[in-house]
């Protein structure tokens, strides 16, 4: 029938539209997105390592993974607050959001370092 090529073309068209829409985002948001992707990949690699060698110092594994996940979450929060299209945070200066991001990260990493062992 030609269904598969149609779906294939649809998928490709979807992909292209997403890509073009994404390129319209401001650069600072793209930087934050890149940071999130980096954190998640680091977490994944750590999980793969644990899967291979076993979870012996479990606290170390947890602290490593949670550091990545935590910083990713904080970056997402930062992105929400900094995004100009977000009406809720219109009055919040981005520098203030960035300061919160830095502070929260420092606290998170203190705990992580303590738990690392």
């Amino acid at each position, binding site marked *: 029938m030609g269904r598969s090529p149609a779906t294939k073309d649809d998928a490709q068209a979807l992909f292209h539209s997403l890509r073009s829409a994404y390129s319209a985002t401001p*650069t600072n948001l*793209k*930087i934050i997105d*890149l*940071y999130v*992707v*980096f954190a998640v*990949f*680091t977490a994944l*690699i*750590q999980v*793969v*390592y644990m899967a*291979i*060698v*076993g979870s*012996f110092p479990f606290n170390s594994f947890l602290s490593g993974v949670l550091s990545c996940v935590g910083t990713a979450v904080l970056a997402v929060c930062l992105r929400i607050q900094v995004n100009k299209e977000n009406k809720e945070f219109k009055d919040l*200066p981005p*520098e*203030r959001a*960035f*300061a919160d991001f*830095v502070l929260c990260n*420092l606290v998170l*990493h*203190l705990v992580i*370092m*303590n738990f*690392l062992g």
Partner: protein
Amino acid sequence: MKISPAEDSQAMARKVGIIAVLLAVASICEAVAIFHPISESHRSAALELFSPVAGSFSSLEEAYEALRTFEVLGIEKKPDVKDHTCNSVVDTLSLMSSNSRDLYHALRVNGLLKCEISNEALTGIVSRLKDAVKDATSLLDYYHSIGGLLLIKDQSSEVDVLLENADGTLRSIKALSQSDGRWRYSSSNPESSTRAAGLAFETISGVISLAASAIDETLIGTLKKDIMKLFDSIEKYDDGSYYFDDKHIDASGHQGPLSATSAVVRGLTAFASTSESLNIPEDKILGLARFFLGIGVPGNSKDLYYQIDTLSHLENNRVSVPLVLSLPATVLSLTSKDKLKVKVSTVLGSSAPPLSVKLMQVFSSGSKDASVLNKDLHFDPKEAIYSLDDLPEGVDIGEYVFAFEIVLSDPEYKRKFATGGRTKVPVHVTGVVKVDNAKAAVLEGDVVESEKKLDLPGKNDLALSANHLQKLRLSFMLTTPFGKPFKPHQALLKLRHETGVEHIFVVENSGRHFEITLDFLGLVEKFFYLSGQYNIDLTVGDAVMENSFLEPLGSVELDLPKAPEKATQPPPQAANPYLRYGPKAEIAHIFRAPEKRPPQEVSFAFLGLVLVPFLAFLVGLLRLGVNFKNFPTSAIPATFAILFHGGIAAVLILYVLFWLKLDLFTTLKTLGLIGIFLMFVGHRTLSHLASTSAKLKSA
């Protein structure tokens, strides 16, 4: 220390009897005990306990205790000890800083050693002591100073020691007394003790004998009443000893009934020597003597001194002199026809005045009544022993209590000596028990299948055999030398299997006849179904049986049925009984196995792999076109921006150090400092950035 009498030969049975006397003491009615006067064992103990270190004693008080004990016991003093101690005495007496206590002890030692002290020196000491009496505040001050003056009076007749204000001194000492008869040591200390009372009596007697003029008679009368009141608090043991005890520890640290009773006896005898008519009942005096004799030979020098010194005071006191009745041997054998021997002496072992000893009653064990015999004992002047040629009729083997009475020949002596009425003494009478008509039989139902006669006590070698349907019966008869039935303390039959498993049975009796029947049908399970040869042992023993025995009788071959599945196993017999207490198998501690770690290459590979996303992040940033355009260019904001980034870097470095070696507290402290700095700097930087972007927006 009690040895099982079953395993003894004839000679040992008598020793066992002597040990068993101590057990008999507790079991028979009260006031039954034996008290021995001072003997050679006390002398050898004194020599051992009072040995001076390097030729001299550590203090004059100890020197006095040693020398006094030696003097009472009649032990010779060594001449070099005398020289050393005399030097110490002379030094103490001439020293101006010696207080009345040191002078008192030095004078006491001088009284025994008779060192060379000049009369002038003595006069000087007398004046010091008289001043001490005037300034005395506590009981011990009075005791030492009065005691010192009294000693000087005995040692030299030329020196004048008489006290002028004897009445006043007496009253001040009396002021420390209490209503219950005890005394306080000083007016500031409310604690009273019996020992203080004894010291007070001694001091007051000293004052009376040192008085220049006659003492008020009423004072002496109240003092006699005080002594009687103190005797209300006397305590008693079951064996007839009386003693005084101090409930609290007094100031000088001496504690216990020995020091308290000793002080009271010293005070009592000192007071009695100054005036007559002190009415202490003679059983109390005898009880006090028994208390000191009852402790045997003490283990330390202080106790030995108290014992010997007090007994010497009791020996020659003016109230009443106690007389001690003792038996050199309390175990009499009927076989060797032992005579009953009794010794009467003073507490230190010297001879008593002429008297006669009567055996009044003989109680057999447990019974409270006995007929009055009133038999006189015959006196042997050579050995100073009273003896009875034949034991009273009907005294068979067993445990008895003999009641004696001492009758003084001269009625004048009745007031002077304390004899104690009826003295009860435990006595063991031993003898040979006849064992006859002994036989062992194997029974089938009630019919005797085989019977053998036994020779008891003697060698036997039975060789019986039985199966589980039969019975084994052993019987014999026991009779005393007088033909009466006898029940021994132990009559046991033991069967021992060849593997070592033992079974013990008690042989019951009815009168003279002893019999035991082992019904193997009922015993099969008890014997653990073990068939084979069993050795038979018979034990018959008692303290008063001179021929107690443990004899192997032979063996019996038992045929028991086979053990069923669920039968209990016999207890394992140790090959060597001492192995039971030997070392057990060693336990090796198993440590927790360490976790398996991955090989290092894998870990390093993943380390590199983890860094890859970071590199990708940096590359991505470059591709996005990051720039530092917004970085403030003017000087002050620039410094703040640099400091801001520097602060964050410092925190991260701190975290790395925290992971590597720091502890949480230092980290938190440093973090706090950096954090404050960072807040300040960050606030400046970010607000500058914010204002810049706001300006741009509005522009």
